[in-house]
């Protein structure tokens, strides 16, 4: 892109890759493990029920927190690497 002194195209592509990867994990723990794949995880017992139930009531929320902090941390590094960090 004209008018910039940094590689905005690569920065944006790196951001999109990171978002895409994060959303795969986001969907896998909630729509996957907690709902659609629950019957496949039924054999893994946890506290009187199965792993799918745990993902539905706790595991997905904990994963979401991890995903956001991971994203924020990686984006800060990308901001610096591509020189688009705020002043």
């Amino acid at each position, binding site marked *: *892109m004209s008018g*910039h002194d*940094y590689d*905005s195209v690569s*920065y*944006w592509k790196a*951001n999109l890759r990171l*978002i895409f990867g*994060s*959303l795969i994990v*986001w969907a896998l723990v*909630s*729509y996957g493990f*907690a*709902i*659609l794949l*629950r*019957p496949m995880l*039924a054999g893994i017992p*946890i*506290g*009187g*029920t*199965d792993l*799918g*139930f*745990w993902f*539905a*009531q*706790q595991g*997905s*929320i*904990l994963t*979401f*927190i991890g*995903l*956001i*902090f991971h*994203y*924020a941390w990686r*984006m*800060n590094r990308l*901001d610096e690497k591509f*020189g*688009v*960090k*705020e*002043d």
Partner: protein
Amino acid sequence: MDQFIINLLFVGGSFALYIGIAIWAKAGSTSDFYVASGGVHPITNGAAIGADWMSAASFISMAGLIAAGGYANSTFLMGWTGGYVLLAMLLAPYLRKFGKFTVPEFIGDRFYSKNARFVAVACLIVASVTYVIGQMAGAGVAFSRFLEVDSTTGLMIAAVVVFIYAVMGGMKGITYTQVAQYCVLIIAYTIPAVFISLQLTGNPLPPLGLFSTHVESGVPLLEKLDQVITDLGFRDYTADVDNKLNMVLFTLSLMIGTAGLPHVIIRFFTVPKVADARWSAGWALVFIALLYLTAPAVASMARLNLMTTIYPEGVDGQAIQYDERPQWIQEWEVTGLIQFNDKNSDGRIQFYNEGNADFAEEAASRGWEGNEFTYNNDILVLANPEIANLPGWVVGLIAAGGLAAALSTAAGLLLAISSAVSHDLIKGAFKPDISEKGELLAARISMAAAIVVATYLGANPPGFAAQVVALAFGIAAASLFPALMMGIFSKRVNNKGAIAGMLAGLGSTLVYIFIFLGWFFIPGTNNLANTPDNWLLGISPLSFGAVGAMINFAVAFAVSNATEEPPVEIQELVESVRYPRGAGGATGH
């Protein structure tokens, strides 16, 4: 000390705190009023988002819903937290970089169209007003139960308190009162849960207690609960659901609805930098998760405690005598939220699932002639300390916590409504040359007007009160979220595409809801009965927001590709929101 005095001390003390904060954080400019001058620390903002987001629905209703539905209602837990992942990655940082005051302002500028801005204002007002009715009604219930005033008087008190700190302080006052309200509500929610978890499982951490062993019986808590309720003909608590498509779409609707709700989005405009917007999404979810990880534990433990209260000798033994029922049942009976009807006239409270045909024979053999006990899901959290025989000050704490949850969300919604009216309609359309002072006055007057409307509707809730929350999420999911996301991630979507997409998403969602719930929620005007057999592919009206969002995306891309590209300056605007550098404070110009 009398319970009433204790409740009064807790509620009165918390209200005095909120008003004190409002006086300290008075707004002096429109920037103060709309976005707290963009000077809020990301952790502070995270706590404020937590209170802003966690409404009467999260605090009062959610655990009751999970207790009633078990695994099937895990959708609320995932749906109301997963949206923050979308906010952190797809919306918040870029909208912060854009640096304006309101959500419709972004849509109007990005799609270079006043009509797009008006469509967004309409969506925002409908979604926020419907949502705020529920908050005011929830505050009314808490007042009438704990302060022994009627709910209309309770509502008036709530309205005056919100009026003082929201009108005076604007976003700045609301931010710091929300932080105080977060502290009150999270303490109120977790303390009883810790006691109950200790009583039942010996584990002081409720989320761990949920998966621990039930001390009295020696089997895991959830297994014990499954046994007790299936012995009374209820559905297995941890049972899987059959209609997975509907469960997925309902969760998705809640997630994208959460991400598209304007009162949450504008909270991200209050932090100084783009990076702070990302961090504060993470902190917000940490603060929210403290309650959301506790809620499923509260749900299963309260359900078990309720059963033990009614069947003190175990579910195979006799049910409790009505004359010996505990104090809390008597108190909730007065509000009508617990009802007892002695169908077989034996003076005992038989509570079982009369709808289960397989259980009918056993019920008949025990001399039961129908279920005799009904309770409203909403009382579960509020009655929880009393069910578990906790001391009076815990009950007072719950009262203050429930009110904090309702009032903090109401204030956030009222700010979103008033800024749309004063900034998007008055300054944006009718009087663009309005002075800074004039706009601040207009913002305060529209806030006051919004409080009056919300109080009136809260005192006289329309017949569709239960459905309106679904409507708020449906509208945010089907109209605002896709428009915001396309505005950032596509340079090709133009004004015509965005408007067509928003109208198609909103229209299809409303039509689908109205077909089953009645046109404009007028009872009797629905075309089909609201039963799973009639639903298209088994998709319930509450789950349709996700489908509406997909229609929005599809129409917007199709129309944009058939019409001209957006002008160069708009493509440059999209380019600029994608890169953090150069973000100033939020401005109105």
